[in-house]
């Protein structure tokens, strides 16, 4: 008979082994099996993708339908099922281009935000799902996920927030009509020159989310607009629409005659490395100050001119953790190549047992005459990226901010948002968040080139904290105050006066409980205790949002300092003393500017004095070299005399 102690011990032992077995079973079941395309066999040749088009059965989502030209109702193909048949869609969907809304993903270095710009309400405000300091979460400006996709889905590759089930009651029915915007693998990986990313953007604007990827392909076309259909529209039963005005707008897919082969498969030209043209759709930039809209007048990045492509540096594996390429990225990224894919990593190598400098043919820089202190104070991009610094900043446009590449885009140089660059500023810390707690690491105070926008928005202030007002409220109130004749035909700022601001704030005051404010041009406008409009200059809530940029990289012969130290160390050198335009809709602030040095954590007096000292540098060189010559002559003279003494002593002459 077992004693109570032994029974207890036996029970624990049994329980332990049962638990161990259960855990093993759980662990084995939790790891998904890699799919055919997940693991490379090592061949560098491109796998030919002649594959069936697959779509989800609308009646039973787990049921997968193969699309054939004979189908009664031609469905758009699903990238989740078609590509996901061989590639782990869920793993890919956690990649950098899709995970912005995941609060568990560290935000890393601040990057280009989405910019909500509406001239009608004198607003341009940076929004992002990532916790980048200075940007606002979409919910803070009253944007639901559905509205966010409506605004910015045009230049997104789908997935992430666009694929989640909406919770907003107004959008639930719309999502049934439009479908979800899945990860569109083709947006990056299609090498078909006829794959039309602008068409994809148009489909997204029309809320044809289910059809967007198909509509962009060369072997299919999609007509109609889900946005025009009623909430009760069933995409699987388009014949139920009887209104003759709505019938032409039913989203409809047509596949080309020759799209399908004899096996009802379709050929996709999809190399693993995304072609640069695909990246350019979302990541283009144009300088409107110098070149207008003419990209042919602007030199491409020197790396691309040399024959490289974007993915040579911005690499990723199955996990799609795209390398962004900044110093310190290894803190937040698990990509094994992240350390060797920075400027320094490729050109100079990292500390490792084997030499790694000169990757991909990167020249190993000599930097003749540049004191090493520069490499501690400046990023590589400070000297090598962007336009050559000029006395005043430039104005630029980007794909995502200005919808470049889309049909019928406003090409005016003045259209909002106004992005100012290059601004040489101290870099911000890297956000290494962990489980919703954002903490910043590596307070990297290196100076690098940035792009900048001056936020302009209507907000409220409570206990000293300024919060943007929901856009719906602002549109309803301020939209009526700003007269139509004040709007700019080019899409730029309306010409606002302080009187306009006063009227708008007074109207907002009637609609909300908290105190209304208007932020623009770095200043905060509000009513003081006597009810008069007061302005707080350089208010912290009105600080500009900056993000570092690296492209386009100039050739080495055009880098700062290549001519002389005075490229930067001069009393009127743009690097320190250039003017940074302050962008504001207010008339009296239109031409205002601030000094570049304000963004650099350096005393302006010291910078000026140090630059001034370079006037005397040639004299210093002459004087010191002359002194060296005299000292060398004295040492030579007396050294030779001493040598003569020694020689005489050795000879015995004394």
């Amino acid at each position, binding site marked *: 008979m077992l004693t109570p102690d032994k029974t207890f011990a036996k029970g624990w032992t049994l329980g332990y082994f049962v638990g161990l077995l259960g855990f093993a079973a759980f662990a084995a079941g939790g790891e998904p099996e890699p799919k055919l395309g997940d693991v490379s066999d090592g061949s560098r040749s491109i796998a030919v993708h002649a594959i069936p088009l697959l779509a989800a059965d609308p009646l039973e989502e787990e049921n997968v339908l193969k699309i054939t030209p004979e189908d009664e109702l031609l469905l758009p193909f699903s990238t989740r099922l078609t590509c996901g048949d061989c590639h782990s869609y869920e793993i890919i969907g956690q990649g950098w281009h899709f995970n912005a809304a995941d609060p568990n993903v560290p935000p890393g270095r601040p990057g280009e935000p989405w910019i909500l710009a509406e001239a009608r309400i004198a607003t341009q405000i940076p929004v992002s799902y990532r916790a980048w300091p200075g940007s606002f979460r979409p919910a803070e400006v009253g944007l639901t996920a559905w509205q966010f996709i409506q605004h910015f889905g045009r230049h997104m590759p789908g997935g992430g927030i666009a694929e989640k089930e909406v919770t907003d009651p107004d959008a639930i029915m719309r999502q049934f009509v439009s479908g979800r915007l899945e990860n569109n693998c083709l947006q990056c990986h299609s090498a078909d020159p006829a794959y039309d990313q602008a068409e994809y953007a148009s489909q997204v604007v029309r809320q044809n989310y289910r059809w967007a990827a198909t509509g962009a392909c060369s072997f299919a076309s999609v007509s109609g607009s889900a946005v025009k259909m009623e909430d009760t529209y069933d995409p699987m039963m388009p014949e139920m629409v009887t209104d003759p005005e709505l019938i032409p707008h039913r989203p409809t897919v047509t596949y080309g005659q020759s799209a399908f082969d004899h096996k009802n498969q379709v050929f996709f030209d999809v190399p693993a490395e995304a072609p640069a043209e695909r990246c350019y759709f979302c990541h283009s930039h144009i300088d409107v100050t110098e070149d207008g809209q003419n990209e042919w007048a602007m030199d491409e990045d020197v790396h691309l001119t040399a024959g490289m492509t974007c993915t040579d540096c911005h690499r990723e594996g199955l996990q799609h953790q795209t390398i962004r390429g900044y110093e310190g990225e290894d803190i937040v990224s698990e990509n094994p190549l992240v350390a060797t894919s920075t400027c320094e990593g490729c050109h100079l190598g990292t500390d490792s047992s084997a030499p790694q400098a000169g990757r991909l043919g990167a020249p190993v*820089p000599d930097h003749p005459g540049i004191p090493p202190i520069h490499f501690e104070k400046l990023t590589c991009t400070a000297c090598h990226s962007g336009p050559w610094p000029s006395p005043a900043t430039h104005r630029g446009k980007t794909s995502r901010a200005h919808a470049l590449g889309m049909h019928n885009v406003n090409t005016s140089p003045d259209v909002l948002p106004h992005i100012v660059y290059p601004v040489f500023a101290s870099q911000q810390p890297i956000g290494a968040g962990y489980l919703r707690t954002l903490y910043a690491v590596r307070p990297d105070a290196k100076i690098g080139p940035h792009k900048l926008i001056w936020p302009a928005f209507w907000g409220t202030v409570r206990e000293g904290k300024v919060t943007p007002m929901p856009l719906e409220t602002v549109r309803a109130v301020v939209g009526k105050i700003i007269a139509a004749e004040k709007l700019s035909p080019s899409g730029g700022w309306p010409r606002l006066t302080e009187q306009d601001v006063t009227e708008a704030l007074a109207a907002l005051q009637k609609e909300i409980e908290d105190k209304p404010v208007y932020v623009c041009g770095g200043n905060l406008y509000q009513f003081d205790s006597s009810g008069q409009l007061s302005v707080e200059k350089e208010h912290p809530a009105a600080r500009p949002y900056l993000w570092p940029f690296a492209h386009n990289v100039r050739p080495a012969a055009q880098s700062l300092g290549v001519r002389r130290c005075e490229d930067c160390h001069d009393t009127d050198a743009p690097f320190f003393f250039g003017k940074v335009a302050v962008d504001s809709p207010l008339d009296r602030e239109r031409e205002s500017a601030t000094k570049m040095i304000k963004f650099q954590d350096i005393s302006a007096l*010291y910078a000026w004095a140090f630059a001034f000292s370079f006037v005397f540098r040639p004299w*210093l060189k002459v004087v010191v070299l002359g*002194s060296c010559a005299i*000292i060398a002559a*004295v*040492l030579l003279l007396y050294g030779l005399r001493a040598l003569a003494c020694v020689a005489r002593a050795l000879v015995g002459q004394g």
Partner: protein
Amino acid sequence: MFRGLSIAAFVIVFVGVLVHLIISRPRADRLFGADRRARVLDPLRVLVFLLTLLFIPQKSTLAGALRRLICLLALLCFVVLFVTGFFPRLFFGEVISGYWLMLHATAAPVFAVCVALLAVMWAHNCRLDKNYWPWLKRVLQLQTTSQAEPEKHELARKITFWLVIFLALPVMSSIVLSMFALFGTYWQELLAQLHRYCALGLALAAIVHIYLMILTEAKRTAV
């Protein structure tokens, strides 16, 4: 490594100077007279004595006055360069930058000129022309040019003088060569290291030289 080495070297030199001073300083009686009053003010008398070393003697010739002025200017520049060059590194572990650097670069050319002039003016007087090492004279059967007996600490003073002059050359040339677009990052770092270590040697030699000069002057003044 440089920081640790510098701290150790300066500690050794300053302790050595202190010990040597305690052992061989001239007695206050001989320096200020045995019948002086308020002997508690002796430290102040020492300070005044040190201050008088900075003055140009009334009966000095023009050349002599010029030499004294250049010495004083060199001393002042040396102090500025010493403080601005070593203070950030030794106390904060930082590379010299900011206003320290500007002050350092302002005093540097003046010091360079002074050292060059001192080299010209003092080289002849600092020849090793006396019988400093009798054993060497016997071995090499040397005939010294001067039959005068060497003063106490004269050899050490002359050696430290030549060390200063000799080390001034790499200190100055390393930093001025780095200002031309001749050397890449690797050589720039090497030149910076050369500048640092030679400056350390120069500073140590200069400290010892200045100490010996003061000691010699004090013994000459002593009754």
